[in-house]
């Protein structure tokens, strides 16, 4: 230990510290009054058994309600629908509809267009056959 370190060590020890009885009592009382905190252990989240019973019963109740609703709807469908008796309707009561429509007549340009399309189709077919070597 060098001179400086020794001097510092000695000087620290020379600082006269006195702890009073009153402070001791205060300290003891403070420590008595507190409890050390318990660390939070990683624990599983356990739910009470009543929780599982409640959820199970809820599920069963929901299933029963669902079945009841389905059955109610099915019975409604089974009930025969009473259709009103049919009776012949006189033609006089049906109004005639004037469509004012005429059948389409092919004109020459459209005929030529069709022929051109057929010619293009034939050319394309021949080209494909040529490419694949037929």
């Amino acid at each position: 230990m060098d001179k400086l370190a020794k001097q510092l060590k000695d000087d620290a020890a020379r600082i006269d510290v006195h702890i009073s009885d009153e402070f001791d009592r205060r300290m003891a009382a403070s420590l008595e009054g507190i409890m050390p905190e318990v660390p939070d252990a990683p624990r599983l989240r356990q739910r009470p058994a009543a929780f599982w019973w409640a959820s199970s019963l809820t599920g069963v109740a929901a299933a029963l309600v669902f079945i009841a609703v389905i059955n109610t709807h099915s019975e409604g469908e089974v009930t025969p629908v009473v259709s009103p008796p049919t009776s012949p309707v006189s033609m006089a009561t049906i109004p005639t509809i004037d469509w004012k429509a005429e059948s389409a007549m092919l004109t020459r340009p459209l005929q030529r267009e069709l022929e051109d399309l057929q010619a293009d189709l034939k050319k394309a077919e021949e080209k494909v056959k040529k490419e694949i070597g037929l």
Partner: protein
Amino acid sequence: MTNELQLVDAAKAGSRKAFADLVESYRVRLLRFLLTRCASHADAEDALQDTFIAAYRYLHSYDPRWRFSTWLYRIAIRKVQKIRQENVVEIGDLSDEEGDPLLHCMAASETENLWVSARRILNDDVFAATWLRYAEDMSINDISKALDRSDSWTKVNLLRARKALGAEMNRETNGNEAYG
């Protein structure tokens, strides 16, 4: 050290007696340190009490890889910082020797105590590092942990503190010789 760890383990297990023994073994050392850092004796005692209460309350968080003293001093330093933030009066503001708890704990003939000079020359953290090194014999690593600083910071500042205090010690020695 082993005995200390046994006491810590017993205190962790709930033994108040074991913790009381730890308090007994550290209270004077801690109070001496706190007197150098607080503006009054009452503040130092409050800081000491708060330190032990916090240590007891959070004993479960103590990591045995640290020295117990390192952990305790770290708590104490934080408590002092808190008290000094709450108080308006700083050590530097104390004008009379009656109010300075450190001077109050020294005999009149010991006014040349080097720690008084150290407190005047060094800033708070460097003073604490110097105290932990030379008064408590702590390692560089423990000091760094206690102050929450890097090892290199501690080494550099301890070296600077040594230079400054060495010069101060020589100055006082020469002055005493000159006037003695």
